């Protein structure tokens, strides 16, 4: 049993799902992650499941503290995601979700680059079906773009692995740091999947296009797998600190002006990844612990938020902030769970985000990354603003949209309930999580200083939102108001933020247009020559074929005599 990756339990188990129906299928799907979890609990540390493949030894199961914590949370997320999707009667989605989760788990336990690559591509291919399962034209194209980028990331990983193997003779997946061309290729592959700035567009593009349940699953694995891979291979790589800081900051502007609430969450997902990437870049035991802990908590509360928004989409049929509002009357439970998720992502004391984010921010301060620290604080405020307040406010409160619907289905409520309980539990009692972290933890989250700083941050952010709403400044129209100077700066700051986001938007739209234009031009050219009837695709007359034969013969002779 120890030689079989827990990921394979899910992947192979998924193959039986199409054969089962009804209750039996539901029970079976729930049993799979539990079985895998039980297996992981019993795993001793070490390397297992060696397979000799070509001239290499693959380590399909490497168990250490770093892989274990990601393994645990991935399986928990898979379990919760399955509960959340129990009402769905779409075999394709269930199989895809299980294979996808299994690939992610398998990748986390991969001890070498080739195995990692296998599962890496597995996540890409399985997950795209969750997007396509929406079965709309826009989801089809978004899925295609997503797939090409994800597979492209895998191809880079493979290229890097090949070069690495050729240069060092080893395929072991250990700390490598950037330097050789091979490591840069691998770094880039991880970076794409981790949605580094400028490589991030696939995330906001595709996640909101997936099905209600698909987005919940998607949000858990792909990017966190990349975080794990970066933590394993590139801990302490200096360049990750600015990259991560940029990731925390820039999505905020987009999130503020975005109307599709699931897309807002996609932006905030990006922002949360930034914290983890900074933690990896700093590379101390504290910061790496922070990254692992934050990934753990983040998977839970992000899933919870996506679940609650999914429930809204499922019941109301839209997830546009401008069309929602007042739903707390119809969906009180969902509202409550959403608020728990919002509090967690905003790092309210006693919620999970607080005890994990603090590790990273403290590490940044300890190691003297002042500007990074400042950006992280700003980002924390921003998160609260768009995920903590905007999401629940526009969906469930704000002006009453008049929409009345049923509460979310029972299985969704159960999934949200468990997730929300976990968020609170970890926030209140962080010790079990701290005990799971890769390194020993000597950190007290609930000091007066931490709590007060965080509360101040949150209060100001809340104030900003309130005032913006009250004065009608939100969304962007500006109206002159006289407030005290402190507020003036804040408002100017927001105006600037909105301008920045607008400018960036315009810029990206221009780039996007250019790229699309170039691509369509290339495709047109390709089609001219390669398409049906093109010179390269049509049937040549026999004489022309014979002519080319002569040309080839002449070419061989001439080149040989030269």
């Amino acid at each position: 049993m120890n030689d079989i990756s827990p990921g394979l339990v899910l992947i192979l188990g998924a193959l039986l799902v199409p054969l089962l129906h009804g209750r039996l299928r539901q029970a079976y799907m729930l049993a799979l992650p539990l079985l895998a979890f039980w297996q992981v609990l019993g795993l001793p540390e070490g390397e297992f499941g060696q397979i000799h493949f070509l001239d290499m030894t693959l380590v399909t199961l490497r168990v250490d503290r770093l892989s274990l914590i990601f393994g645990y949370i991935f399986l928990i997320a898979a379990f919760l995601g399955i509960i959340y999707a129990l009402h769905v009667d779409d075999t394709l989605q269930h199989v895809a979700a299980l294979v996808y989760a299994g690939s992610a788990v398998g990748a986390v336990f991969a001890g070498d680059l080739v195995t990692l690559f296998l599962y890496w591509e597995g996540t890409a291919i399985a997950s795209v079906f969750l997007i396509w399962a929406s079965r709309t034209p826009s989801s089809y194209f978004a899925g295609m773009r997503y797939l090409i980028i994800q597979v492209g990331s895998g191809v880079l990983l493979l290229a890097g692995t090949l070069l690495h193997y050729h240069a060092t003779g080893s395929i072991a997946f250990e700390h490598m740091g950037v330097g050789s061309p091979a490591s840069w290729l691998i770094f880039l592959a991880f970076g794409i999947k981790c949605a580094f700035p400028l490589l991030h567009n696939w995330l906001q593009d595709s996640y909101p296009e997936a099905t209600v349940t698909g987005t919940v699953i998607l949000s858990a694995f792909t990017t966190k797998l990349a975080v794990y891979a970066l933590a394993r291979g590139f801990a302490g790589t200096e360049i990750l600190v600015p990259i991560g800081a940029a990731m925390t900051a820039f999505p905020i502007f987009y999130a503020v002006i975005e109307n599709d609430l699931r897309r807002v969450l996609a932006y905030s997902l990006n922002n949360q990844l930034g914290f983890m990437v900074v933690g990896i870049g700093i590379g101390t035991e504290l910061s790496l612990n922070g990254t692992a802990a934050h990934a753990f908590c983040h998977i839970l509360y992000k899933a919870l938020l996506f679940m609650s928004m999914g429930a809204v989409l499922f019941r109301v049929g839209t997830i546009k902030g401008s069309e929602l509002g007042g739903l707390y009357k119809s969906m009180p439970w969902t509202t409550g769970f959403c608020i728990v998720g919002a509090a967690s992502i905003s790092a309210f004391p006693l919620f999970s985000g607080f005890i994990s984010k603090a590790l990273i921010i403290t590490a940044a301060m300890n190691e003297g990354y002042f500007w990074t620290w400042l950006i992280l604080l700003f980002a924390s405020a921003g998160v609260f603003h768009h995920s903590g307040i905007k999401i629940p406010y526009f969906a469930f409160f704000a002006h009453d949209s008049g929409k009345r619907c049923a509460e979310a289905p029972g299985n969704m409520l159960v999934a949200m309930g468990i997730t929300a309980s976990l968020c609170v539990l970890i926030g209140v009692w962080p010790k079990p999580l701290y005990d799971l972290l890769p390194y020993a933890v000597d950190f007290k989250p609930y000091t007066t200083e931490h709590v007060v700083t965080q509360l101040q941050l949150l209060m100001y952010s809340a104030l900003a939102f309130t005032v913006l709403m009250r004065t009608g400044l939100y969304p962007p129209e500006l109206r002159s108001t006289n407030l005290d100077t402190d507020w003036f700066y804040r408002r100017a700051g927001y105006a600037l933020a909105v301008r920045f986001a607008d400018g960036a938007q315009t810029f990206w739209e221009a780039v996007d247009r250019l790229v699309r234009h170039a691509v369509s031009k290339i495709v047109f050219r390709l089609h001219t020559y390669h398409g049906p009837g093109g010179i390269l695709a049509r049937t040549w007359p026999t004489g022309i074929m014979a002519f080319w034969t002569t040309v080839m013969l002449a070419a061989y002779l001439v080149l040989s005599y030269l």
Partner: protein
Amino acid sequence: MNAVLPHLPALQVVVPLIGAILAAFLRRGNFAFTLTLAVSAILPFISGALLWQVLTGGPISYAMGGWAPPIGIEYRVDLLSAFVLMLISVVGVVIIPFAHRSVASEIDASKQAWFYCMYLLCLTGLLGITITGDAFNAFVFLEVSSLATYVLIAMGRDRRALLAAFQYLIIGTIGATLYVIGVGFLYLLTGSLNMVDVAQRLAAVEPDQMRTVITALAFITVGVSLKLALFPLHVWLPNAYAYAPSWVTVFLAATATKVAIYLLVRYLFSIFGVAVNLQALPVGEIIIALSLAAMFIASFVAVFETNLKRMLAYSSVAQIGYITLGIGLANQAGLTGGLVHIVNHAFMKAALFLALGAIVYRIGSARLGDLAGIGRKMPLTMAAFAVAGLGLIGTPGTSGFISKWFLAIGALDRGWWILVPAIMASSMIAFVYVGRVLEMAYLREPSAETARASDPPLSMLLPMLVLAAATVYFGFDTEWTAGIAGKASQALVQGLAR
């Protein structure tokens, strides 16, 4: 048993030859099919025994009719030829059950016996090319297989099959002519037609005769390149594959071009390569350049092609590019990649064409637009298609990945790292053309035509499932593919003159 064992090399060719003659006399399609089935079932045992003998005891030399080489015709089985013999026989026996219904639905009852007769002749020719150690005998078998192939293609239902067969006839004859002219040059130089003997004597030719050697090399390379459809000499192939009867396409795609590739390897590595330093000549570079062109141009054509038989045919041209790329690299890893892809591609492409044949059997069309939602109506057929398609892309976990891995290592060993992104980029193009089909089959609502379709009977289903399973199996266990290919290429590369 002991009386039979020494004559296995002859039996390998004689059994299908006799089968062909018998089939012609049987006249009834069903009888001929049963006979063909029996012959196909015997062949893998013969080639398996040969492979076993070679693995344990080294190359076998068999003097045909008791005339000792180099005067008499020698049948020579080394690891490379045993490997290809095994491939042909195994593909033959796996796909033959599919033939019964497919042929019955596409060929007139009165012609079915002739069909099987031609098939067995073609098989005889292909096995003969592979097993013979005589350059001219190889030409004879080349013609036997080619003539039979022209007939098989012309039997297609579509009237364009006639034109396709005719074009292939002209081009194939040109190729064979070039080949035999090259063999003529070699005979002039060495006075021998036995391949081993020619190689030994070539090494001793005077330097002022090198021009003749080079000319012979050019004629043979181009002649064989025509048969193996190396870009830009591939244009006969798409129509031949598209309009031939479905099952013939399967067989040709899996074996015919592969045998031509075998012949190219034989000449480049066992004859010319042993005698002269090929590194000093641009042969490798030309082959690599053409392979790259095939990998990209043919793949792009496949992306835009809507007739799926033609699409797969162009994909074959691209995949042959991978094989010849490995041959052009001419080092241990590269050649291993090329040789292993001969087998891997044969299995996956056979599975793809079989799946397509089953679709044609059910809905009568191979146009992309007619396949909407067929994944739900023919789940097992499309599953085989999807798995083999993933192999074509080179997805890890399939045999295609193994081939590309070796090719990439071979490119790096040669110091041409730029080939690595090229291999990957062309895989991405394959991803697009395979993805188009999968999208149409799985994500669209079934149309009125496809709604009535269902998986074909077991006799048609089993072959493609076996081949698709092989595509996955050989993605993990590579002992019988890459293992043997590695040994064969080691022997070939070590034999090269420096």
